[in-house]
């Protein structure tokens, strides 16, 4: 195996998250709580990519994600691809889909919203998937998904 290939080693079983905008790599780590995992995780960023300028890539051994977990990623990067690996082969490619509702993932931008003043879960309804507009279930404030903070 050449040194070039060794840069990111292949995994036998697990998930490869590809085409992450490089600056969002650690947001993906946080969203999936990868820092708490006990199986091997490889996190790479600033890789050259044909599709985008630079990308991040994450490989997680022996871990497969539910659709709910995957869809949380739509908040940071709607174009991420998840490859499910079994026995070194890609058996499935999944694209992130923006869900209709986001629970406990993002914070409301309205400082006077109840969700910022009470220990509780946030709920947002996604009202425009193409434009990325979400609406707080509690204060009704509409906000752009790339202008909100993650919890």
């Amino acid at each position: 195996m050449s040194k070039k290939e060794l840069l990111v080693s292949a995994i036998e079983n697990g998930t490869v998250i590809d085409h992450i905008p490089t600056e969002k790599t650690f947001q993906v780590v946080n969203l999936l709580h990868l820092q708490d995992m006990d199986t091997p995780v490889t996190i790479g960023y600033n890789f050259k990519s044909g599709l985008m300028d630079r990308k991040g890539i994450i490989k997680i051994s022996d871990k497969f994600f539910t659709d709910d977990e995957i869809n949380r990623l739509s908040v940071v990067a709607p174009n991420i691809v998840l490859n499910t690996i079994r026995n070194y082969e890609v058996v499935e490619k999944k694209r992130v889909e923006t869900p209709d509702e986001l629970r406990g993932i993002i914070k409301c931008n309205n400082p006077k919203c109840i969700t910022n003043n009470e220990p509780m879960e946030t709920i947002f309804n996604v009202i425009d998937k193409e434009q990325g507009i979400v609406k707080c279930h509690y204060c009704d404030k509409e906000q752009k998904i790339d202008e909100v903070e993650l919890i």
Partner: protein
Amino acid sequence: MSKQDFVNIQNLSEDTLLYLIRMAQEFEKHPNRELLKGKVVATLFYEPSTRTRLSFETAANRLGARVIGFTDAKVSSVSKGETLKDTILMVSNYADVIAMRHYIEGAAQYASEVAPIPIINAGDGAHQHPSQCLLDLYTIHQTQGTLNNLNIYLVGDLKYGRTVHSLIMAMRHFNPTFHFIAPKELAMPTEYKLYCKSHNIKYVEHTAFNSKEIADADILYMTRVQKERFSDLMEYERVKNVYRLTNDMLADAKPNMKVLHPLPRVNEIAYEVDDNPHAYYIQQAKNGLYAREAIFCYCLGITLDDVLNDKTIIE
């Protein structure tokens, strides 16, 4: 049976709005009853609002309920750091229904999700004030005989005025034509204009406010231009009297036209207008009692049939 909250206006159907208006009409005929005898109503006011609180408490008292509550968060456990959830759950142990006022937006919605008893939103910050909206609808219906196909002119602070925003959403069932009259600093926000477009509500925007502009109005809904909203006080001084209603501006008004205002007013309606037959804002405030009697019954499972067959009327 799921519990019946009264938290926002935009989720209420046309049938529900008309049902509540019908119920309020019965309370206008006979406001004093014992329909809620044995019930305990809690009024939790996290910020003072004397007018709204007195209206809710009067409605409860005139239906025979007893009232508990607080008038200011300073005197409750909130000042000790208690969460809204804990306060709501504690009061739910004592009362049959909670009417709550809060300065935080979405507080009533959240309370309705945690409380085992019905929640009535008596205003949550700049967000919603649905009982005000119901009394506005009731007043429009009372003065025009219908809610359908009316020309409604909204004047003043259309940017921050939650009553005008709620009115637009509540009127969407009734084919209104809205006219927005405001200085550009306080113009109707884009999100509400988009709301109008997506719900096929006709609207026209004006900046001038004179007798000719308002000659077609069925309802002239005035709001207060709030000084605290302006970053530039020169600007406030310039616009504060532009949107002032005087008697001579009502010279060309249609005979059925009524002037409404959620009150309190400052100087946007000249005192001379009070005696004009078009003035209706004082009667409008009185309708708050009937609307809130209807809201309490709606939340406590008392139907229009119960009200129509009520044997507890006190003459």
